Structures are given as C-alpha cells and as structure tokens.
C-alpha cells in the first residue's frame, strides 16, 4: 500500500477528482491548504498599503492506494493537474504499513 499526497492548484481540483473517479478511486481526503514552493505569491494593495501574500491557496489530496493502482493514479494526476505554469504543485508517495477499517476491523488492502 502506498500513501499519495498531492498538492494541486484549486482550479484543477474538479478535473482531477473526476478523472480519479473514472480510474476507479473510491475514496480520498481533501483539505484546503495554503503554501508556496518556487512560486512566489502576489501583492495586494489596501488604501495604498501593499501586502505580499506569499502563502497561496492550494488543495491537498490524500489517499492510500493498493500497489497496483499507484502508477495509474500518478499518471492521472499528472495529466489532469498540469497547467504548465509554476505553482502546479507536487506529488509525494510513501509506504503505508497497515490500514484498518474501523467498522469491521478488516486489515490490509481490503480495508481501503
């Protein structure tokens, strides 16, 4: 099992979500987050006072995947989340030791 975390542009979220559903992803956790990588923020001006906003709104997707789906999902995200500009985000993968379904205590990939 692998855990996938993807930070993406909010504007791409709906397309990514739809594409993931099409390749058979049944669950995901989504958070609205703020952050920045190489993309520096923007400035806002209120009555002449300039503020640099360097933490920009992003969407974080988290899902734990059975090994056989990992490549498909990564490809799907790469394809749908890309705008080609700085600020498109990143994908992180990490190994997961165990998964347990709280309702019936199922374990392993069948709990996903």
């Amino acid at each position, binding site marked *: 099992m692998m855990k996938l975390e993807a930070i993406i542009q909010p504007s791409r979220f709906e397309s990514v979500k739809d594409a993931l559903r099409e390749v058979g992803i049944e669950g995901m956790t989504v958070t609205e987050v703020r952050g920045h990588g190489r993309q520096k923020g923007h400035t806002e*001006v209120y009555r*002449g006072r300039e*503020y640099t906003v360097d933490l920009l709104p992003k969407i974080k997707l988290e899902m734990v995947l059975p090994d056989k789906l990992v490549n498909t999902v990564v490809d799907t995200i790469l394809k749908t989340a890309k705008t080609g500009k700085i600020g498109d985000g990143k994908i992180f993968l990490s190994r997961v030791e165990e998964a347990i379904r709280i309702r019936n205590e199922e374990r392993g990939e069948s709990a996903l």
Partner: protein
Amino acid sequence: MKRVVLCCSLMLGLSVMAVPLPAQAPAASTPATASSPDASKDLNDKLAQLDQRVTTAQSAGDNAWMLTSAALVLMMTGPGLALFYGGLVRRKNTLAIMMQSFAMMGWITILWALVGYSLAFGGNGPIIGDLSHAFLRGVGVAPNPDYSATIPQLTFMVYQLMFAVITPALITGATAERMKFSGTVLFMTLWFFVVYVPLAHMVWGKGGLLNASLGGKFPCLDFAGGTVVHISSGVSALVCALYMGKRVGFPKQPMPPHSLVLSFIGACLLWVGWFGFNAGSALAAGGLASSAFVATHFGAAAAAFGWSAAEWLKNGKASALGAISGAVAGLVAITPAAGFVRPMPALVIGLIAGVFCYLMVTKVKALFGYDDALDAFGVHGAGGTIGALLTGVFAQTIVNPIFGDGKPVGARDGHWGQVGNQLIGILFAWGFALLGTIVILKITDLVTGFRVSEEHEVEGLDITQHGEEAYYLES
C-alpha cells in the same frame, strides 16, 4: 336675498378651496362685494380655516421628509458605519468596532435628551447654548421658528440628535483595534460636551459665532456638517491616533481588512443615508432639499471615480475598497456644500475630494507614519476641510440666497470674501477640535486609561473587551 348671498359665498368659498394659494388675493376683496356682514364673517372664518389647513398640509409634507431623514441618518451609524468600519478591521476586532458605533446610538441619545439638545440649540450665545430646553422642556409638537418653522420641534430635535450620534462614532476609525471600551465611552462623553455641542451651536445655533444666517460674526457656510461633523471628528481622530501610537506590529505586520464585503455594504448604506443627512438639512421638503439631494449624489459619484482613477493610474487596478472609500470621501466633501451648489460644481467638488483624499490616505499618511487605522482623518478630516473650502468657492445665491435675496454667496457669485470666511471656520474648527481633544485625552487616560494592554490587543478586543467573538467557527 339672504339665500342668494349664502349661495354666492358658498361658491366663492369652494373656489378658494380648489385653488388655495393664488385664490388668497381675490378672496381678500370679497367683503367689499358681499353686502351682508354675516356673510363676510362666514367667509373670513372659512378663509382662516383654509389658512390653517394649508399650514397643516405643508407641515405634514415637511415632517414626513424630516422624520424619514432622521431615520436615514441613524442608519448611517448603524448599520452603515458599523459595517464599513467592521469590515476594515481584523476579524478579532469586528464586534468591538461595531459596538463602539452602536454605543453612540444609545449613549449620545440619552445625553442629547438630558442637556445636549439644549446646549446646542437653546439660547443665543456665541459659543454655547443654554439650559432652557434641558430635559427637553418646551420641546413639543409646536415648531421652533428660529430653526424650522414648519416642523414640530420634536422632529428637529431628533433629527439633530442623529448627527450628534454619528460624529463621535467616526473618530473610532482612528483608534480602531486598540482602544478600551471604558475609555471609549468616557472619551466620547467628554468629547460630546467639550467639542461637538459647542461647535454645533457656533455653526448652526442662533447667535453662534460662525453662523451664516442667524447673526454669526464670521458667517461660515456649512450646510450639513463639514466643520461640525467631519472636520471636528477627523481632526480629533488624528490627535487620538498620534496620542495613542501605532497598533502592535504596524506597519510591518500585514493588517488587511477582514471582510470588504461588509465594508462594501456599509459604504452603500452610508451613501443612501447621506441623502437624509444632506437633503434633510434643508429642514423642509422643498426645492432646496432636491438641490442638496442631487449635489450629494453627484459628489459621491465623482469622488468614487476620482479615487478609482488615481488608483488605477498608480497601481494598474481599480479596487473595490478604493471606489467605496472615494464615494465616502465625496459625500464628506459635499456635505458643507450640498445646499449651496449647483450640480456641475458638485461633480467638481467630488472629483477633487476623491483624488485629494486618495493622496492623503496613501501618501501623506505613509510620509508621517501615524496609524490612523481606518483613515478617519484621511477621509473625514481631509475631505471635510477641502469641502468646506470649496463651498466658499462654488456657493451660489441662485441655489440658496442665505445672505438675502440676490446677495452674492460664494466666489462664483463674485464674493471671494466667503472663501476667507470659510478659512476662518476651518481654522477655528481645527483648533477647537485639536485643543479640546488633547485635554480630553489626558483626562480619559488618567481616569479609565485609553489603550488596552499589548496582550489584549494581540488577543483581540472582541474577547478581551466584550467577552464574545464575531465569528464562532465551531458552532
């Protein structure tokens, strides 16, 4: 014979009723044509009744507008100003700033009823009124002919009260996010008596030093409160901001407005309410009210344009906050001029005020580094001053012959001396607000303290001053 005369007089009476005002002249000659003394008495009675009805009708019309105006001006403080300021502060101080406006709606009303009205509009001293109307003695449905001959004095009293409510509330823009609530209440109480009431009397009260139509020594034109409301509150706001010092973290830490949506709604309510403020200052529902209404609207529109254009040139974008700030600046500047200027000069005044206040808020404030948090001085002090000055330039006797029929009013009529009178009024209001506020600040600081502790400031005034939060996200 008797029946014929009765018939005649009845018909005459009816015709008089149908066309009330022009018919008064022929009616006066009817006793000569009527042969019986009985009939002429009858006719005179009818005429007297008619006169009474005409007066009642005019009073009803004027009173309807003035009560509406009073309500509109109250709406400027709450929710207008409360929302405008409320959106500009950070989230943790929203209720505190709104409460400061709301507290004025309650507290100043009480003070006004007890002695405030009397000190502002009773008597005819040069500096302050007297206590002849204390506890509203003698203030009833009969008009006060000194100020408004056609509306009940109660209406006049409650209308003027709404101005006394919003003026101190304006100051809270400068002290926002760091002023104690107890200090606010004490300061505003003292400020009401020491600055507002005398200034209102001097400019609008009978015999007041700066009154333009009721025997003032320096006739300063101020239709709806450029000096009394905006210069006084704006200058006091500056003094408060300087005395208090900057907010913790200013100007390094970003302090953007937490909800420009609230500010936007507030500004629009202010714009609408201002029709009551300015057009209502005609104290009647006649042509002068229409004139002031149009000037007010034009001033606001032109200033919104002026501020936005300046901002667009400077930053490449016209912001919503800029547009609404410009509109308010224009409304401030047109306030003293509203009942004296024609529509085109109103556009000019608005345009100048929009650009001028934009520069005051963005450039001058940054240059001196004072923390007038919500720009009470930059908008009201600066806008009020430029407006009062331009009133002297653009006032015309054709709009309001305040110095007598046909007599020139402002520089547009060739009376440049009025610009000088306006300057005197402006300097006087500045000096008066400045000195008064310094004294009051010292007293307030000694009694309740003025500023919250740094800890409380960081935590936010909503929780530390009022024990509640504007946005309770867990519920």
